[in-house]
């Protein structure tokens, strides 16, 4: 089950904790992967640890020309095709709304939502031709529940869910599925910086009483990317230890 041999996958934000785990898991299932992100050195290290069937194309998700270039170069690197697109790149610029600057709002929307739309649009053409595609957008629990201090991030992540449902309806007849995966609190370098008190407060809201692991997110991506998930589209898979049951 969930064999991805012969599939070509592009993972954005692959230099991060969750993105790296996703890339490793897809690769382990047999896929060829292209790693994208802004930190070229971290991407090269990940590529080296994967060995064969791995490529790096660094790109900025706030630059339309760079996004088009990414789609083209990733396809070219993987033998002219792109079957699985994991839009995982994302940034935060947290601030309470009363103090949030326009640029903090705009930057987060631009990278997390607009960048994802642009890259998906660029990848769609080839997927339509080949009558196969898997688009997996990494959203967040806060896109559904909201979170104080993250109006921009929550808006972008909620936007991804609405966008994915629309794309899913447009593309379903062409063998392309579009789904979201919404992680809860996951142990990554981003959450390592939290104090013990902060972690305790978070865990008080998580029935599983622990943070999730990047591998637990990656496993969900592998499922959504698989042939077995062909009949799943427009959905959001929540992986959050029971923190929110939607």
């Amino acid at each position, binding site marked *: 089950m969930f064999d991805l041999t012969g599939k070509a996958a592009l993972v954005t934000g692959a230099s991060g904790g969750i993105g790296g785990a996703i890339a490793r898991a897809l690769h382990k299932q047999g896929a060829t992967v292209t790693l994208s992100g802004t930190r070229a050195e971290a991407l090269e290290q990940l590529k080296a640890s994967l060995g064969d069937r791995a490529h790096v194309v660094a790109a900025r998700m706030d630059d339309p020309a760079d996004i088009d270039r990414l789609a083209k170069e990733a396809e070219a690197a993987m033998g002219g095709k792109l079957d699985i697109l994991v839009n995982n790149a994302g940034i935060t610029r947290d601030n309470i709304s009363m103090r949030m600057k326009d640029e903090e709002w705009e930057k987060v929307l631009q990278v997390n939502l607009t960048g994802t739309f642009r890259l998906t649009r660029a990848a769609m*053409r080839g997927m*339509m*031709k080949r009558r196969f595609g898997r688009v997996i957008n990494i959203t967040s629990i806060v896109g559904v529940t909201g979170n104080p201090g993250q109006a921009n991030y929550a808006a972008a992540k909620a936007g991804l869910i609405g966008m994915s449902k629309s794309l899913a309806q*447009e*593309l379903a*007849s*062409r063998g392309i599925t579009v789904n979201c995966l919404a992680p809860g609190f996951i142990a990554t370098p981003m959450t390592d910086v939290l104090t013990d008190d902060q972690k305790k407060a978070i865990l008080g809201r998580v029935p599983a009483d622990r943070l999730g692991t990047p591998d637990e997110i990656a496993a969900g991506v592998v499922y959504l990317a698989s042939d077995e998930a062909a009949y799943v589209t427009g959905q959001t898979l929540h992986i959050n230890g029971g923190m929110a049951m939607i």
Partner: protein
Amino acid sequence: MSDIAERVKKIVVEHLGVEAAQVKEEAKFIDDLGADSLDTVELVMAFEEEFGIEIPDDAAEKIQTVGDAIGFIKGNAKS
């Protein structure tokens, strides 16, 4: 140049699964040949591939009939 018309019609027949007799120059892809909006995008992609040309989005929007497609390609095709 009639060759272009034949090649266009062949692509339309294959893509939309319609009878060749229905594919007249005045036939509209959506109203007469049962295409949906995604089909029209795919037809444009198929024309681009067959004739080695680029059909920009604003031109693609104006291609509504078989004749429109033939006309555009005649004006822009290299082969």
